[in-house]
């Protein structure tokens, strides 16, 4: 595998990951709006918590992905 191949795979995986994160946060925003409409204060808190936890989880996942791809490929 040439370094260019490796770079292309890394870039593709990076964009895929970015799209997944975007989809996740858009879905969560939709849920948040929906629960606000229902006046469900507990439900809103729960979604907000999930969104906050998402940040470290996605950062860890991102580094894990970069590390594993460099080790495997």
């Amino acid at each position, binding site marked *: 595998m040439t370094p260019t191949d490796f770079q292309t795979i890394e870039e593709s995986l990076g964009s895929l990951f970015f*799209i997944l994160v975007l989809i996740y946060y*858009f879905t969560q925003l939709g849920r948040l709006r929906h629960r606000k409409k*229902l006046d469900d204060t507990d*439900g809103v808190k729960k979604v907000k918590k999930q969104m906050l936890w998402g940040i470290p989880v996605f950062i860890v996942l991102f580094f894990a992905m970069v590390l594993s791809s460099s080790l495997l490929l």
Partner: protein
Amino acid sequence: MDEFYHLIDWALCLSGLIGLWFFFSRTGGPLNKAQAYMSVFREKGIYNPSYGLAIAFVYALLDIALSIVIYVWFYNDYWTDSDFGIAHLGRVILLYTIVLVSLHVFLPKIDNRHLRKTINTVDYHKMGLSMAAFVVVCVAVEYWLKRFVYGMWYGEESESILATVAVVASTAWIASSVYTSLNRYESIKNASERTLGALKTRHAPIVFLRSFVLDKPQRKGMTFDEYICSTFALNSQPIVSLSDPDDFLPTGGSIKIQSTDEEWESAINTLLMECRAVVIFEGKTVSLKTEMAKIQRFHIPHDKVFVATPPQNYRLAAWNDGKITERKYTLNYIWNDFVKALDTYGGMHGLPETDPGECMIFSFDKHWNCKAPVKKTGKDFLGYVVDQTVVHENDKCDYISLAEKLNRFELQHTQVLSKSDEKRIEKAIIKALIMSALMSLAVILLIKLLVK
């Protein structure tokens, strides 16, 4: 390796398509746009759907005019087909947003509440047919422009066939939806003239207590109320409920009382005193809680009161707002909140805390503890309520005097819109449309200058 690249390409393509679908499902077709415009009118207190449709009508013409402007100004050797496609997508988003914002700014707030139970002479059937024909003509013109004038979809044969099939299918769907939604007004405009005073029976009515939100969504052209009353002999056993005074036309099904904000409680008090049974449908409004409290205050016998859940498709449409991931959570939340309210305000205990499912009917013992529920669908739903309340059946209900009593609490004003209000709205619409056209042209011109 190539397979891996293909896989990534497919994944990116798929996520892009999902994103586009998400965007178009909210802003795409002319019908969605008409609905969005209508919601602006509703916010301003104007409930006549013909205004929203008129805007959609002019919007479609403006859209075609702007697409020609883009073609004349931009289409040259330097622009590829995909650039041109992106420019058209930008135009759609731009015009839609500007029209929406302009309407918000220019439309005056109007008090348009009036009694809808008047003779409505508008031919909605004809209106629906002409709007559907208009949609077909507009799409045909736009298709002709794109295909034969702008030269889009001239790549591979499969691409042009796919585009043609997509255009024809979406046009047929939009035209039929426009026709169906307008033709519905034709079918309910006479239902809105039904009055209690005209009833010949002397059986006391069954009263529905429900949130107005539950009566808004339609499935197979019927609201929830119409669905459960559709196969029931309403003339011999009348069903009565309050209607949303903001509805353009009261729906079919139960006979609707269109009371004022100040008098709705008096209307409910009158109905509760005269009724044969009360059915409370799950809901989440302050008014529903007030109604629950009235059941205890007026000492309504326990065997006259039923708590019920509507069919699943109506529940999801009313409460869930299309959120696929939130279905179970929403139904559980609404039911749980409803049960707590029944306990606190209505003194009714023992109902399950989690969602019991669709079409369940709960009745109560003399201590107001809930009995085992039964599941009834279609006409069996009301049949069950009737069977359970045979002991309360009497033939003493005088509908003429009941109608007279309730008439005092109903909206009395029957005029649709005053001439001066009509003129104000028309002026605002013209202003908003001119402003939208000018602003869109200005933005396109600015882009042209920047591109140079």
